[in-house]
């Protein structure tokens, strides 16, 4: 496991990176006959703002307009105005005031648009108040969802994005190291989380999504932490997902307090085989379905196929990037995982062997396979009780 401080990444991303992203977006516009893109940024889904503005937003909502030609405009709450401008990609930053008249329409018209069709990312989440403002400001403009379009563009990462994710991977390794170090009899779940959180924040994490579960084979899934205290023999599972410079990576591991039981070891062997199978199936050009099926086939061959269903598990992994839960790896999902995409393969589910078990690694998809983002070993960790 790594315990080194993360290597430095550039604080301000170059304009060339921005221009490359905008070029990809505009190419996608053309294929969908869009005259521009409007990104709605709710408080819990800020990934598109990161992609367009490379800024860390804190407000409850924002809008960013990218025309077919010309400069973008951001509409933000006061708390985000300086952050967006300081990032340097969007220099025209205006107040987002839903009672103001003419500000949005001026930005769109200023880009030379008359009646047009604009794609709106996260249109499905846009609240009544914001959409009413849009409909007033852009009365003669057709608004259609561009959520999937933007997700597809974001799927393949640039070298700068990968650099950030590699750095986040180093921090993720350190987070797991802190997790194991915090495990001891009598320690509660939330106290473990506190120690992990402090360690990752000290190293520069800007956020973290984390679930945990402790206990025996009665455990069916992971949740936020409880006051439950660890006992010898407990298997402690976590999905730990820090964010650095706007990008997330994730680790899924299970650790036993004391010596692992036969059931826990058997469970680990099953999950390690499924993870290996998923990774073996992964290369540029395969689908999310292909990877999920490879994982599930291991369970089916071992007689545990029923535990790959929605009754027991959600996904067999998922995309990572500016959001931590991108394209799902599930059977039936035909999204092509192109070279440069980042996914975590995790066959996490419940089985009667040892209860809910998690094991997963994030990787960069390459033409012939994948590049690991973590250095943590894929073992069932045993922590002295």
């Amino acid at each position, binding site marked *: 496991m790594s315990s080194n401080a993360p290597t430095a990444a550039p604080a301000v991303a170059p304009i060339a990176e921005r221009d490359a992203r905008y070029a990809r977006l505009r190419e996608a516009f053309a294929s969908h006959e869009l005259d521009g893109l409007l990104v709605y940024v709710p408080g*819990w889904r800020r990934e598109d703002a990161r992609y367009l503005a490379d800024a860390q937003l804190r*407000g409850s909502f924002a809008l960013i307009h990218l025309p077919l030609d010309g400069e973008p405009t951001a509409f933000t*709450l006061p708390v985000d105005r300086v952050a967006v401008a300081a990032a340097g990609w969007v220099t025209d930053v205006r107040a987002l005031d839903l009672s103001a008249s003419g500000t949005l329409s001026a930005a769109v018209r200023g880009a030379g648009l008359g009646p047009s069709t604009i794609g709106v990312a996260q249109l499905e989440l846009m609240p009544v108040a914001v959409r009413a403002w849009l409909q007033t400001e852009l009365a003669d403009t057709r608004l259609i969802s561009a959520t999937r379009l933007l997700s597809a563009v974001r799927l393949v990462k640039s070298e700068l994005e990968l650099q950030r994710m590699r750095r986040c991977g180093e921090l993720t390794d350190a987070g797991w190291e802190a997790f194991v170090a915090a495990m001891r009899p009598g320690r509660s779940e939330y106290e473990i*989380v506190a120690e992990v*959180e402090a360690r990752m924040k000290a190293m520069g994490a800007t956020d973290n999504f984390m679930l945990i579960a402790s206990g025996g084979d009665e455990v069916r899934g992971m*949740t*936020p932490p409880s*006051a439950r205290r660890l006992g010898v023999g407990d298997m402690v599972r976590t999905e730990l997902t820090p964010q650095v410079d706007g990008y997330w990576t994730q680790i899924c591991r299970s650790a036993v307090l004391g010596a692992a039981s036969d059931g826990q070891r058997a469970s680990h062997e099953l999950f390690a085989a499924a993870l290996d199978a998923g990774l073996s199936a992964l290369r540029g050009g395969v689908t999310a379905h292909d990877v999920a099926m490879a994982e599930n086939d291991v369970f089916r061959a071992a007689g545990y196929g029923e535990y790959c269903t929605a009754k027991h598990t959600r996904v067999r992994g998922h995309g990572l990037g500016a959001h931590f839960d991108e394209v799902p790896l599930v059977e039936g999902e035909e999204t092509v995982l192109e070279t440069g995409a980042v996914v975590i393969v995790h066959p996490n589910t419940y089985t009667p062997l040892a209860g809910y078990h998690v094991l997963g690694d994030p990787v960069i998809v390459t033409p012939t396979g994948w590049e690991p983002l973590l250095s943590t070993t894929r073992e069932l960790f045993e922590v002295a009780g």
Partner: protein
Amino acid sequence: MKRGLVSRKGDGAAFVARVKRLQERLLATGAAVGLIYEDVYRADDVAYLTNLCVYWNEAILAVPAEGQPTLLTKLSPRVHQWMRATSTLDDLRSGPNFVKLVCDYLAEREPRTLAVVDRAWWPAALLEDVAAAAPEWSVRDLPDAVRSLRLAPDGLDEETLERAAAIAGEAARRAATAVDESANGRIAIAELHAREAGAKDLIADCQALDDGVEAVRVTVQLGNVWSRAARMTGGPGLTATAGPMGALSAAESRLRAGTTRSELELASVDGAMAKIAATHHADLGSNGDFRPDSDLVTPLRRGAVLTLEATVETIAGPVTALADTYLVSDGGSVALSRGEAATR
């Protein structure tokens, strides 16, 4: 992110009373059902009524005018057991499609009026689809129906607010007084203290003022309430600290029942070195971004809890230099985040 302690539901009677108050409002407006939509970023109404932690994704709480609330959620049934253990909810319904979940719920009832709490902040597309799929129901807005209840803390919230404020104050103090610590290190100190003390969520930042002074701001969610405190570090020159201290002191002296947020925020005009922002505890989780305009001129009630922040302009934008959370009384206020006793 809500990755801290999610406590058990505790005093179930308090939640029953809260739901009852909302139901009285529903009955008064002729609504048979009230619907509350929230997501992981903005989940305080659902938590207030049920103690449920929406730790990810979205959820709709359906509250009938009579009877028990029902949760409609995209979260998996695998976590129903946990939801039942940590909330007052018993009827939990999961599915990938909110419209179907809502319509199936409404189909069990005689069509009447459907009250949508805070309609302005519902996803427009979802609301349109629900209205189209249930045309026999008359949809009406019920703005501020739960937040307005949260503004007046009940016994359960009073006790939790006092603890939350103490945690926020101590976390900010420890982070700000640490010697030779980096900004990330100060945030880590705040995280460790607050989360070990049981915080469910935490928003901490450390930003530079002038003269080598830094400010640590800590916003803590404990149980279902929020509190905030900010403290400044020492430095080679302390001129940066005078403005915020004076502004906060001036605002504090005006804080009592009957004062408005507008009056408190205007208090900073005279000093000019720092601006004051006043935020009810019920609005801290989303920084006041969803509060109604009328909140600015609504007189504070005795027992209200709010945060006063002194903010200074820096080259990196406005930075909160000093903040405390107060309990409002008829004659003044008590700074809960400074450890003052909440004698009422």
